[in-house]
């Protein structure tokens, strides 16, 4: 019968029926304390509100090619009540759900893994869900990613970015599998450590948007795609032959040589991937490789 832990069941029923139980007393006491805290907080908040600090001013870029009045880009201002721990995404969602349901932006995971919500916040490429309002100067200016076509409001067309990502053959390739069906390939820890950071990319496009070279040369692979190539080129499971091929890919006309070490990509990457370092390492690998033939 009982698969449950008797103690817990007993106690929880007890607390409901016998108000004088120890747990209940403590709870009541804590409620009181919590209530006091809340009161205090409310007072503080009221004070703040009086000082006009409890709301955040958001200036959000608006544009819609189809809706009259929005065809000419403009900035809308929203005042959002500030709560502790509020992120730019929270503020945007609040503004959308409370003031203007046509406010459009991509978002999904709210935890910096889906890469949907890279935006230009106060002049920097940021993931909205990972950017605390309290770290920003007001008014908070939110714009779509620069150097990308705006679809609507904060949504940009990511197709080009995806094309670049897919141009580097972003999939594992090797001919050297272990014999057994159920045998994994061996990889030493060091090698896995080496590629670790490069595997963290969430395709948010922040890096690409921040890079002036990518802005000027539309065909430049861009930091994210080069990083993707790095992830495979440095993975020793792929073997030497493949590495050769990978280097050829990144060495193309619009590949690594385009990078001018601006470091903006590294600066903005929300996953802290050392992009410039990876690009530079690939350049060196390529030169080393070529020196063999020169």
């Amino acid at each position, binding site marked *: 019968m009982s698969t449950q832990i008797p103690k817990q069941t007993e106690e929880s029923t007890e607390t409901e029926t016998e108000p004088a139980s120890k747990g209940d007393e403590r709870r009541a006491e804590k409620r009181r304390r919590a209530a006091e805290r809340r009161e205090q907080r409310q007072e503080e908040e009221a004070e703040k509100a009086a000082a006009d600090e409890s709301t955040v001013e958001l200036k959000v870029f608006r544009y819609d090619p189809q809706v009259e009045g929005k065809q000419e880009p403009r900035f809308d201002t929203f005042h959002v009540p500030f709560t502790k721990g509020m992120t730019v995404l929270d503020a945007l969602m609040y503004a959308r759900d409370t003031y203007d349901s046509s406010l459009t932006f991509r978002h999904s995971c709210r935890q910096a893994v889906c890469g949907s919500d890279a935006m230009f916040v106060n002049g920097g490429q940021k993931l909205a869900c990972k950017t605390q309002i309290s770290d920003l100067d007001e008014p908070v200016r939110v714009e779509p990613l620069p150097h990308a076509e705006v679809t609507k409001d904060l949504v940009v067309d990511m197709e080009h970015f995806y094309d670049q990502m897919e141009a580097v053959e972003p999939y594992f390739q090797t001919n050297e599998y272990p014999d057994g069906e159920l045998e994994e390939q061996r990889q030493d820890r060091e090698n896995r450590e080496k590629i670790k950071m490069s595997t963290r990319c969430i395709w948010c496009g922040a890096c690409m948007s921040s890079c002036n070279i990518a802005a*000027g*040369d539309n065909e430049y692979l861009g930091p994210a795609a080069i990083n993707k190539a790095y992830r495979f080129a440095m993975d020793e499971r792929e073997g030497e032959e493949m590495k050769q091929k990978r280097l050829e890919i990144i060495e193309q006309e619009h590949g690594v040589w385009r990078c001018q070490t601006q470091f903006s990509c590294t600066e903005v990457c929300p996953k802290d991937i050392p992009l410039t370092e990876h690009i530079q390492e690939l350049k060196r690998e390529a030169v080393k490789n070529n020196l063999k033939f020169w």
Partner: protein
Amino acid sequence: MAERYSSFQSGGRMWFLQRVTAVFLLVVLAFHFFLLHFVHHADEVSFLASSARMEQLSYYSLMILFLVTATFHGVNGVYNALVNQGLTGTKRTVIKWTLVAASVVLIAQGIRTANAWAGIGLY
């Protein structure tokens, strides 16, 4: 071997040469500045002094090399910058050859000047 060579593109080679010339220039440009502004002051320049230096073969060849590398480095740098800003197609080809021509003129003129000082008849 032809196929193997396809594994590198001039992009990589030019990039590399830009760095190699930079290293060379770093030393020589420092030397050049030091010599002509600190050891000999700017207001003391004269044809005689220039020509005295140029008559030494080592100095002469260093300067020619300096000229060639600086021209390559500078012109290649300019070309790269333009290409990075999205210069393509015919425009690109035209600019490329214009730059090459300018480089040739610059180097030729530089050599003639050096020859004039060094007392070599070719100028």
